[in-house]
């Protein structure tokens, strides 16, 4: 998204493509199988992402930003069609973090979240969770005991989780 704001059309195209797929899943889950409705909302949201891209803060997480727009469009849709949403809207944000955390942009967001951790913990989580080393291998590589590694990773993940749940909102 940051590349897109600077005018990189190739990156932008890839981003919109990914979003299109993910928005279809997002709206598909929340609206009964009405595909015309889903298509409309996907289009509405893509257009809103495009016309309002200036409101994306480069230090913000793209997933939080784009799903907030999608949610806004969904609420708007419910209001216009006079129906009640099936998911209480207050619960909605937590759903996104669990449901939609796959994908290119999400990986970028996780990178950003990782950067909020101390460097040592960061490196351990990368080794174990992303490069899939065993605890023992990681411990050996860093010259730590296995227990220390486990504790550090556990604490790191907990912090990471709370960071992601907060949406990385910068005050």
């Amino acid at each position, binding site marked *: 998204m940051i590349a897109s*704001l600077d005018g990189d059309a190739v990156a932008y195209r890839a981003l919109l*493509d990914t979003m299109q797929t993910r928005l279809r899943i997002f709206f598909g889950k929340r609206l009964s199988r009405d595909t015309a409705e889903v298509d409309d909302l996907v289009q509405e949201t893509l257009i809103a992402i495009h016309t309002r891209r200036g409101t*994306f803060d480069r230090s*913000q997480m793209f997933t939080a930003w784009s799903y907030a727009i999608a949610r806004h469009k969904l609420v708007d849709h419910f209001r216009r069609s006079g129906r009640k949403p099936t998911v209480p809207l207050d619960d909605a944000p937590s759903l996104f973090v669990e449901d939609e955390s796959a994908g290119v942009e999400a990986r970028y967001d996780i990178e950003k979240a990782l950067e909020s951790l101390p460097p040592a913990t960061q490196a351990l989580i990368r080794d174990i969770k992303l490069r899939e080393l065993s605890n023992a291998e990681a411990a050996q590589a860093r010259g730590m005991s296995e227990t220390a590694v486990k504790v550090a990773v556990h604490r790191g993940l907990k912090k990471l989780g709370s960071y992601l749940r907060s*949406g990385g909102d910068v005050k």
Partner: protein
Amino acid sequence: MTGDIVAVLSADLAPVSHWYVARRLFIGAGTGIILSATLMLVFFGLRPDIHHAMGAGMFMTKQAYTLAFAIIAGLAAERVARPATSGRGRIAWVFVPLLLVTAVATVQLARATPHGRIPMVMGESASVCPWRILLLAIPPLAGLVWAMRGLAPTRLREAGAVVGLAGGGAGAFIYALHCTENTAPFLAAWYTLGMGASAFFGWLFGPVLLRWDGSYEQETKQRLFMADS
């Protein structure tokens, strides 16, 4: 149809400035402030002793107090104009000027003679002051509403209250150039009430006033339609 949308949108891509949100809010508020200042000059007039007042402690306090509200709320508006971000962290700063002026007002009241206290709070214009502030708040508030509708607030009540307070602060700043009241208790009571009323107005009507202006989307849709046929 939606297959093409990605192609059309990415063909339409132009670089966007870091300052997009701030600039738009600034244009909206600025236009309103000019209009509001004109209203004040035409209907109320500058205070006659403005040359003496300039630099006097109480005059500067009034200007600083109202300006602080306008700036803090303006900065919060820059946050709440974006999806998924909140202006709460920034708006909390209004408690600094609020507490400062309340403290000064308390000291002034404590030092006054018992008979002097009521006139200190009421001044000569308590009954009109908040209303006039509210009136002068309307143009900057309207400008900010216009700006917000083209941005993307998703917390409409919060956004309404924030632009209401920003408009109120700007309106009060302009009104203070006319008003000759010279006590901190007056400022703490009636100016705060005027600005607060403006914020409340924004909170109340935020969900209606701040619905996204669809004309930008409409334009893009037309382009899509043309690309389709």
